[in-house]
C-alpha cells in the first residue's frame, strides 16, 4: 500500500494594507518577525502615536455626530512635562481634549503601549489638538461613513518561483472613512478640504465618494520609489478606493485624501526636513517665494519656534489623490505584486525552514533599522546603516 501525501492546507491568506503591505515594503525581515510571528516591539512608540491620533479623531467625530456638532475649538488643558499619564483632574470639561484622550491612553496602556517620553506625549496631544480643532470643523461635516471595514478578494498572480501555493486568491482588507457628495455639496466653498478636492478636480459632479485616511507622519518627499512613502500612500488610497467600490452601497470614488497630521503642528524635525526638501525641489507644497512663510522655512534654524499660517499647514497636511479606474488598476496591480512577493517568501521558508535566508533584511529606511529590535545581528544594519 502506498500512503497518500497529506493534503496541503488550503488557506486563503488575509492581508491588511497598513499592517502587511506597508510593513513588508519597509523591510522583509522585520515584517517576518513583527507580523509573521507577532513579536511585540520592545518600544511600540510609533504604534502608540498612530493609534492615539486615530483614536482622538474617531472619538471626537463620534461626539460630534452624537451631539449634532461641537463648539470648536474644543478646550485643551495642556499636558506638561510633570504630568504623569493619568485621569485628568476632577472638574475637567468632558469636552476638554485631555478628558477625551484619557480613555484612549488608558486602553493603549492596557495593551502595553505608551508614549516614549513626556515630550512625545506632549507632542502627540498638541498634534491631536491641531487635528481636532483645525481640521475637525472642516472634516467632520463631510464624513458620510466612518470606520467602515472594507475587504475584497483578489487572484494571486502566478509565481515566478514555481513554489507550491497555499491558495489561488488572497483577501485584502482595511478600515476607511468615506466622505459623501451630499455632505460636500452642503459645505461652504471655504471648507479647506472641499477647496483641496475642487482644486484637483474642479468638475466634480453627480454622485461620488471620497476616501480619507490619516497618517501620523509628515507629508513625505515626492518621488517614484515603489517602496517610498509617497508612492505607497498613493497606492494605499487607490486600493482603498477599489475595496470600497466592491461594496454594494458604494458610489463611484472620485478621489482619495491623505491627511498628514504632523504637518498641522510641525516640530523642529518637520521644519528642518521641509527646508531641505524645499531647497532641493523634493516636495510639492511649498510657500510662495517672498511670503513670510517662505522666509520662515528657508531661514529655519533648529530650536526656533515655527509659526506657519493655518492655510499653509492645511495645504501641507491635505493630499488629494484623483481616483480613476486606471489608477485603481495600477495601484492594485502593484499591491498584488507585493502580496506575491510575501507569498513567495512564505513558500521559500516552508521549503528551507530558514528565516534569514528566506526574508532578506532590506530596509530602505534608516529610522526603521535604528528602532528595530533585531538589528544587533542584522547584516544590513551592521554593514550599511550603523555608523553612517
Amino acid at each position: 500500500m502506498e500512503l497518500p501525501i497529506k493534503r496541503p492546507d488550503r488557506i486563503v491568506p488575509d492581508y491588511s494594507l497598513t499592517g502587511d503591505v506597508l510593513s513588508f515594503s519597509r523591510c522583509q525581515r522585520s515584517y517576518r518577525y513583527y507580523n509573521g510571528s507577532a513579536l511585540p516591539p520592545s518600544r511600540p512608540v510609533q504604534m502608540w502615536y498612530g493609534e492615539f491620533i486615530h483614536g482622538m479623531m474617531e472619538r471626537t467625530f463620534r461626539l460630534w455626530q452624537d451631539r449634532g456638532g461641537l463648539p470648536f475649538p474644543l478646550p485643551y488643558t495642556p499636558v506638561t512635562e510633570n504630568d504623569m499619564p493619568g485621569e485628568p483632574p476632577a472638574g475637567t470639561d468632558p469636552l476638554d481634549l485631555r478628558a477625551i484622550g484619557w480613555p484612549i491612553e488608558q486602553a493603549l496602556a492596557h495593551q502595553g503601549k505608551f508614549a516614549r517620553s513626556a515630550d512625545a506625549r506632549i507632542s502627540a496631544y498638541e498634534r491631536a489638538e491641531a487635528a481636532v480643532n483645525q481640521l475637525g470643523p472642516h472634516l467632520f461635516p463631510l464624513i458620510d461613513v466612518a470606520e467602515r471595514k472594507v475587504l475584497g478578494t483578489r487572484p494571486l498572480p502566478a509565481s515566478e518561483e514555481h513554489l507550491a501555493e497555499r491558495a489561488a486568491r488572497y483577501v485584502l482588507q482595511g478600515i476607511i472613512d468615506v466622505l459623501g457628495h451630499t455632505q460636500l455639496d452642503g459645505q461652504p466653498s471655504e471648507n479647506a478640504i472641499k477647496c483641496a478636492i475642487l482644486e484637483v478636480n474642479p468638475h466634480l459632479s453627480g454622485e461620488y465618494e471620497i476616501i480619507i485616511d490619516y497618517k501620523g507622519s509628515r507629508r513625505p518627499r515626492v518621488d517614484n520609489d515603489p517602496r517610498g512613502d509617497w508612492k505607497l500612500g498613493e497606492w494605499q488610497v487607490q486600493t482603498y478606493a477599489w475595496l470600497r467600490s466592491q461594496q454594494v452601497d458604494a458610489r463611484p470614488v472620485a478621489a482619495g485624501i491623505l491627511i498628514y497630521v504632523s504637518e498641522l503642528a510641525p516640530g523642529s524635525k518637520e521644519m528642518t526636513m521641509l527646508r531641505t526638501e524645499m531647497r532641493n525641489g523634493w516636495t510639492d507644497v511649498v510657500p510662495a517665494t517672498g511670503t513670510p512663510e517662505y522666509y520662515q522655512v528657508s531661514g529655519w534654524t533648529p530650536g526656533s519656534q515655527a509659526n506657519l499660517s493655518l492655510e499653509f499647514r492645511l495645504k501641507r497636511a491635505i493630499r488629494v489623490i484623483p481616483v480613476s479606474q486606471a489608477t485603481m488598476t495600477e495601484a492594485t496591480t502593484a499591491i498584488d505584486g507585493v502580496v506575491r512577493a510575501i507569498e513567495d517568501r512564505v513558500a521559500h521558508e516552508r521549503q528551507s525552514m530558514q528565516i534569514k535566508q528566506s526574508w532578506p533584511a532590506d530596509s530602505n529606511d534608516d529610522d526603521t533599522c535604528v528602532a528595530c529590535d533585531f538589528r544587533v545581528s542584522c547584516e544590513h544594519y551592521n554593514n550599511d546603516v550603523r555608523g553612517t
Partner: protein
Amino acid sequence: MRFEQFLDLVEHTPAIARRPNGEQQVCIRADPARPTMIVAGPGSGKTTVLVLRALRHMLVDGIPPERIVITTFTKKAAREIRSRLIEWGEALVDQAAAMPNLDAADQTLLRHLDVNRVVAGTLDSICQEALGSDRHADEPPLVTLEAFAANVLLQRRGRLGPVFNANQAALAGFLAPFTFDGTPPGTVGEASRALVPIVERFIQDRVDVAAFGAANQPHAHQLIAGIAADYRNYLRDNNLLDFSSLEEAMLSRLQARRVPTLLADTAVVLVDEYQDTNALQEAIYFELVLATGASFTVVGDDDQSLYRFRGATIELFRAFVARCQHRLGVAPQGPLYLVENYRSTPEIVDFFNSFVREDPNFGPARIQPPKPVIRANATASQMPVLAMFRPDAPTLANDLTGFLSDVFRGGGYRDPNGRYPDLLRRAADGGDLGDAVLLGFSVLEMQRPYFGNPPSPRFTHHLRNALMGRGMSMFNPRGRSLRDIEQVEQLLGLAILAIDPPSRQGGHLFETMTITNEAKFFMRRWVVAGRALLAAGPAAIYGRTLQQEVGEWNRFVLAGPNPNPKSSSRDWPFLDVLYGLVPWVPHFEEDPEGQVYLEAMSRAAGQAAGFSAYSGKIVRPVNPNVDDDHGKRSILAILRDVIAPIAENVIDVDEEIMPSVPRDRLNVMTIHQAKGLEYPLVIVDVGADFTMDAPKNRFRRFPDSPSATAQIEDALAPFTAELGPLRTARSGLDRSFEDLIRLFYVAFSRPQSVLMLVGCEKLRGWKSKVKHVATGWRQDQSWAWKDQTSYVGRRPPPIVSPPSIHFI
C-alpha cells in the same frame, strides 16, 4: 437560481467537481425557515455541507453574504471554513456567470456577490469585532485581555493572596478536588490555577453567583464569590474584558435588543462544532436568532465533544431539539445525519464504529436515538488496524522508529508474518514523514519533576532520540514546556544574569522573593544554562560579545561605572533585554520553531507591560541596595510578572503562528490539537508509558473518581438552575468516562489509510490490571479485547489478541 440548478453548478465547477451525496443534499436543502440540527460523523463532509449551505443561502435564497454569520470553535477552523468558502464561492460565481441560460436577476446577483463578506470566525472574534466597532461616543475603547493577563489580574485585583493566606484551610479544602492531582493547593499560584476555571464558569455556565456565595453557603463559596466580584469590578472600572465577559457583554446587548451593527441584519446563523458550545454561547445564539429572525443551523457530533474542560456542554447539543423548541418556540428539523465517511478505509471505520459502541454505559451519553453507524465510502484496503506493543517505552520508541524508517526512508514495511500481502510505503512522488502523525492524551516529553528528582523521560522523548539516531526528527512544539526547552533555558538564564546578577549585595534577588519553589527551581536551572553559555564565550556578533551585553546590563542595574551605553536611558523595556540577548541563541532568529518559543516569552513580557508595576520596564537605580529603590523594585516586578510565570509553566506556546510544519519531520500532537485534522498514517499512543496501574495516571485511562472538571460542574450544578440537572443526569464519573471515550474516538477517526496503536505490553496481559478505555475496557471493568480473544484449550494465552487488530 433553483436548488437543482445550484447542485448542477456545484458539480460542474472544477474547484468542487462533485455532487453532494444524498444525505448531504438533505442538509443543504433543509428549509431555512425552521432551525436545523445536523449531526455529522467524522470525515462525512461537515465543512462541505456547512460551506455549501452558506452558498445556497447566497445563490438560491438571494441572501447577501454580509447577512450570513458562521461561527466555529477555533481560529484555525474559522480560517479553514473561510478559505473554503472563498475558494469554492469565487469559483462557483465564475462558473455561474458563464452559464448561458442565467436570468437577469441572477446575473445582477452574481455581479455584486463577494462571498468574502460573510461574517465568519470564532464567536469571541465576532463579539470583539461587533462590540469594538459599535460603541457609543461616550463608551471608551474596549480592551480584551489575553488569558495570562486576566489570570494575573484575578490574583491581584481579586486579592487572592491575602484572602487565601487568611483562609487557607477553608479555601484549600474546597479547591482540592479541582487541582491537577486532587491535593489541596499549597500556594497562591496553585490556588489561582484551580480557581480560574470556576470564576470563568460563573459567567459561561450563567451561575447564580449571589446564591453560590450566600450566607448559608460554605465559607469558601463566599470567599470565592467575593474574589470574583472584586476582579469583575476592576475589569469594569478599567474598561477591560476577559473572554467570558466579552461574550456576556454581547448577550446583554442582544437581550436589550441593541444588536450591534455588524449583526443587526443577520439573516442566517450557521454554527459549527455545536457540541462544544457552552450555556452562555447557547444563550447568545438563541437571542441573536430571536432578535433578527435569522435562519438557524447547528452542526456538530456528540461523539467528538472534547472541550468540557473549557466549559463545553455536550448536554446542550444532546438536548438541542427540546431546548430550541422551548427558547425559539419552533421544533427544529433533525437531527439530520451525515454518516458516509470519505476519509478512512473501511477497516478503520469498522474499528472506530466498534470502539464507540463497546461500552453500554456510553450509549445514554449519546444523542437519542444514536446516529447510524458510520459507513466507509472507500473500498476495502486490505490493510488492518496495526498495533505495536512493547515491554517498555525505549524499546517501543526504537521499534516504531524502525517501522517509520522502513516506510519513509527505506523500501517499505512488510509484515514479517505475511498477514497482509502489500508493502506499506511512502508515496513515490514526495511522500515524507510529514504524512504521519503521532497522537496522544499528552505529548509531554518529560514527566513532571519531583523536588530532588530529575524529571524522567516519557515515550515521546525516547522517540525523539531514536528518530535522531536514524537521521529523522519530529515536530512537537507542545512536547516540552517552554521552561524545558534548551534554548529557552539559555536565553532566560542570560536574562536573569543580566538584570539580576549574583554580584548584587546579597546575591540573586529572585532567591529572596516570595515566589513558588517551583519558580525558583527553574530559575536556578536557567541561570546554570545561561552561565554555561556565557562561559563558552560564543563568537562576537559584529564585534559585540555576549559578555559585553550582559556586563552592560549588570552595570545599569547595579549603578556601575560609566561609560555604559545602557545609561543613555532612564528605563528600558525588559523586551529590550530579551531581544538584545537573542543573537547569541540563534535558534530564535533563524528557526521557525524557535520563533514559536520566542513569541511565547515576548508575549509574556509584552502583556506584563499592561498590568505590571513599572510597565514591564527596568528602571535606572539610584541606590540599588535599598529596598525602596525604583531600580531594584522594577527588577523584582519583572522577575515576578514575566519570568516566574514562565517558570511556573503558565505561558502556553502558540504553534499556529508557524506558517507551515516541516514535511520531513514526524508531527506529534495531542488528540485535542488533532480535532478536525486528517493524516494518511496516524499513530495513537494508547499507553506507551503505562507500565503499571499507577493511581495518578488513572484519570488518563480509566478514572476511579470524577475528573476535576466534572467535579466543578457538580459543585456549580445547584446554582445553575437550567444547566445543573441536565449535566448531573449522569454522574461525574460517567461523564469522566464519556470524555475519554470521545477523546480516543476522535483519535481513531483521524487516519486516511493506516491506523496504528502503540502502547506498553503490560496493557495486553491477559491478567492486566492496567485498564484503559482506549484498549477496550468498559466502565463495568469488563474487557472487550479479552472477550474477543479466542484460544484453544483450557489455558488462556498470556496476552489478548482481538482479531480486529494486527499486532506487529
